[in-house]
């Protein structure tokens, strides 16, 4: 049976993970999304290629396993080669359309972007305040907060609602100010280790730092050391995590429609 007919019968489409150099070699561990995991293939055109796998159009995408598979494949590739990650959920009709409508028209753009990324990957630093230490810090620094806290200390919650709201408001504002300051300190402490950095929005109310950086993968060890020094300074106050190497999600800019 011709392949085309099979694809149509089964409503198979091509899920696109990202763009890589055409000479990239897939790893035997590389698996796509779906159940069972899709077989990842490279669809090449000229010097660029798309990482794709077959996906069943009848099945909605978005199970936790789908997200993880998307991200693992791209991050694993990013550790080995430059990669332009697509946002989750990019699906095209056939491998032929991936070539004709994606790789061919944008070949030079993709190639240039991949060259810019050569040797680099994304790393994310996340810092979360240690709650008790944070509260102690704020209460020590802010007399009004300390007074409010004393006022609610031994009284029932219902009777101190206004004081509680005011105290919480002060705390929220203090956290925001601390986050700004600590983020700036982190950027300063790590400068020289990244080529570009983007401050991400906090995704938790006690986030201290959320920073995405483009870093040379051969500079990872030095980055870790610089981060450890900040970690020592902030010990017991902020818990830090370093994620990476990741595909450079924060550093690929989608072409604006109509531009």
């Amino acid at each position, binding site marked *: 049976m011709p392949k085309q007919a099979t694809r149509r019968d089964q409503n198979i*489409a091509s899920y696109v993970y990202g*763009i890589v150099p055409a000479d990239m070699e897939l790893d035997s561990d590389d698996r796509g999304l779906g159940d069972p995991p899709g077989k990842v293939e490279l669809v090449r055109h000229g010097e660029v290629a798309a990482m794709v796998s077959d*996906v069943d*159009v009848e099945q*909605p*995408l*978005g199970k936790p396993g789908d*997200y*993880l598979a*998307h*991200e*693992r494949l791209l*991050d*694993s590739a990013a550790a080995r080669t430059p990669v332009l*990650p*697509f*946002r*989750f*959920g990019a699906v*095209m*009709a056939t491998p032929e359309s991936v070539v004709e*409508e994606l790789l061919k028209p*944008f070949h030079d753009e993709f190639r240039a972007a991949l060259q810019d990324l050569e040797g680099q990957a994304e790393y994310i630093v996340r810092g*979360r305040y240690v709650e*008790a*230490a944070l*509260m*102690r810090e704020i*209460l*020590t620094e802010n007399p009004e907060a300390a007074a409010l*806290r004393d006022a*609610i*200390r031994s009284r029932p919650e219902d009777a101190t*609602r206004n004081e*509680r*709201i005011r105290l*919480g*408001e002060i*705390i*929220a504002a203090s956290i925001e100010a601390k986050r700004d300051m600590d983020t700036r300190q982190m950027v300063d402490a790590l400068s020289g280790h990244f080529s570009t950095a983007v401050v991400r*929005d906090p995704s*938790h*109310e006690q986030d201290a730092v959320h920073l995405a950086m483009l870093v040379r993968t051969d500079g*990872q060890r030095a980055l*870790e050391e610089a981060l450890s020094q900040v*970690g*020592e300074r902030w*010990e017991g106050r*902020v*818990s830090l*995590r*370093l*994620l*990476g190497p990741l*595909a450079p*999600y*924060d550093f*690929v800019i*989608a072409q604006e*429609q109509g531009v």
Partner: protein
Amino acid sequence: MTTSVQPAATGQMAGRPTPTGLADVIDTILDRGLVIDAYVRVSLVGIEVLTIDARVVVASVDTYLRFAEAANRVDMSQTGEKGLPEVLEDTKGAAGVDRTKNVVQGALEAADEKLTDIVESHTARRKAPRSRRDEREEEE
């Protein structure tokens, strides 16, 4: 509490950042990366993509009340809390710490793994053994 210690507690490396990973992953892949229809609009296949609402941080009265309660709970006489390394040491002995260290460093080495704790200066201060790549390969 930092989450990447979990693999250490549950045994050596299923190896991948699991539930913790998911939050970070969703954070990243749902609103970042290239968008295919900015390039091609015609040939998108009509496939249903389930997405999760972005978690937005909005300060509300609820948040304020929660913060106030957190402040209320804090014992100001206490000079410092135990850090994670100390807690680990207390509960599991030095072996527990070493294990964490190995997991963390293994993750650093493995190209396709990405969950790393740098926090515990305690842990991080210890320099990596030269042979850790080899160790990791043995584990696999």
